[in-house]
């Protein structure tokens, strides 16, 4: 959090005004805080969101910790998430996971040494008919096969 915080606070208060109860702005506010804090939420983020919405930092942290898309530890500049739920698993998601692991040099759940990419395996992304689904910076790639992995990684690193 930095000097831009005032502007963000304004945005959050405006957001809060759009709901019958300002508490409803908690998730959008946490998302905004995360976007402005290199993709993760630290204790200052919770203080800031709490201040903007009249909630305690502990409350904000409790909410954030519930949801998979909020990160409570530093992450890479980019994210690669491979779905490994049933339909993708049946269609070879494991080979895709293995290919990413070898291409990135880190196992799922970790960030590459250069801090560029956080690699995760995730639950169903809702693309079961187009397996394997990989979410790259929140955009879906569908029908991904192990042989597609090098070019995906190259694209992310170049982007």
């Amino acid at each position: 959090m930095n000097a831009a915080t005032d502007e963000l606070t304004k945005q959050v208060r405006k957001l809060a005004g759009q709901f019958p109860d300002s508490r409803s702005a908690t998730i959008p506010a946490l998302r905004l805080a995360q976007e402005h804090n290199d993709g993760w939420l630290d204790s200052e983020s919770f203080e800031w969101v709490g201040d903007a919405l009249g909630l305690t930092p502990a409350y904000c942290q409790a909410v954030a910790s519930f949801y998979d898309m909020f990160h409570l530890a530093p992450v890479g500049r980019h994210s690669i998430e491979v779905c490994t739920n049933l339909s993708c698993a049946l269609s070879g998601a494991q080979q895709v996971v293995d290919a990413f692991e070898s291409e990135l040099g880190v196992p799922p759940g970790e960030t590459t040494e250069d801090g560029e990419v956080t690699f995760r395996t995730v639950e169903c992304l809702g693309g079961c008919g187009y397996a394997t689904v990989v979410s790259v910076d929140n955009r879906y790639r569908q029908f991904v096969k192990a042989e597609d992995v090098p070019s995906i990684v190259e694209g992310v690193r170049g982007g």
Partner: protein
Amino acid sequence: MGVRSMLLAGADERDLTKLSEYRAIGGYEQVPKARAMSPDDLIAELQAATLRGRGGAGFPMGRKASLIDRKSPKPKYLVVNADESEPGAFKDREVMARAPHRLLEGCLIAAHAIESNDVFIYIRGEYLTEYEILAKAVEDARKAGIFGETNVTVYRGAGAYICGEETALLDSLEGRRGQPRPRPPFPPIQGLYAAPTQINNVCTIATVPAIIELGAERFREIGTPGSPGTVIFSVSGNVEKPGNYELELGTSMRELIYTHAGGITGGRQLKAVIPGGSSVPVLTPRQIDVPLDYDSLGAIGTFFGAASLIVIDDRCCLVQLALRSTKFYMHESCGKCTPCREGTRWMVQILEKLERGDGELSDLDLLGSVGSRILGKSLCALGDFAVYPVASYLEKFRAEFAAHVEQGGCPFGGESSVEGIFAPSDQHTHSPVAQVPA
């Protein structure tokens, strides 16, 4: 029975994300027609249509609307459940991406029925592209003056399967951890912000314009008497042509798998079908000559669910599949109720032991007994969803489970199609994890 477009009508020919294109095929014409009706008459029409909820429970949509406490001095809310997260389901996503205005048209009609001016669409956080399409559709329709007095807010979730459960969704929308509420009070009496609230799935609401257009009587001629209309079936797993297929209810499961979806990949043998999303009891190949409707699937001991078929061929080890499925429900258990939170962990431990080859035959009974202690013992159905599939695998493929014990390991010998399957890498690491007593 067969192919019939209703939810996705026109989407193959035109770009229905554009307001002008949607209007060119008669889009939004049902709104003034519905608004000319009194809310009582509109609810009566919806009840007569007997449209059953497409989210999974199959509760009649019109009946739900009739339960709204419209005399309450509080505002009434319409909430659309677009938190599609059931493994195997990807139908709502297609409607939002390709026919977003049809969903919005349904919202305006349903909101009029319950005398609501506030609509919230809760879309799962991962659906960023669909969120953008929907948000633009809302903006375009608002600017065109179609909404009138009605406010429509698209709200992004942040990654939690449980928020597809209607009361957990309400808590999340209120800015809380998404955990289910005790009922009663039920949402039609006390839902969002403790006000009367109607909650429906995307496909349910997107069907509403067709009901107004055709009238309840003609709508009921489509599909089966007990399950009228069309449904978008999501087909995934080991089929040649996975994808979404909009068909009349009552179409045969065999026809969907072998004709529309092209049959089993590589001409392999069918081993099992999960018919409604990963949470429902599995069917064997001998059971697939069944009409796809709520009552017919109920009659053979499973659920229509989210109309999401996961097709499994003979290369798959069902102990591994059960393990992967249970790890999902363990990960997604919100932690509020002990039977679900701890029971899913126990199930995972027993299944891991079996898959490793360290299991005993008594573990099969233990697995069943842990399941029976989860079923029906929590505030919501998530715990049940973990148990239904595993209990059915155990019942219908017991020999395969027993073979893991008798052979001291997986009979697939590392060749199962789901070999090595991962749990999500952000798997919550609760410490200490309760261990199943030796």
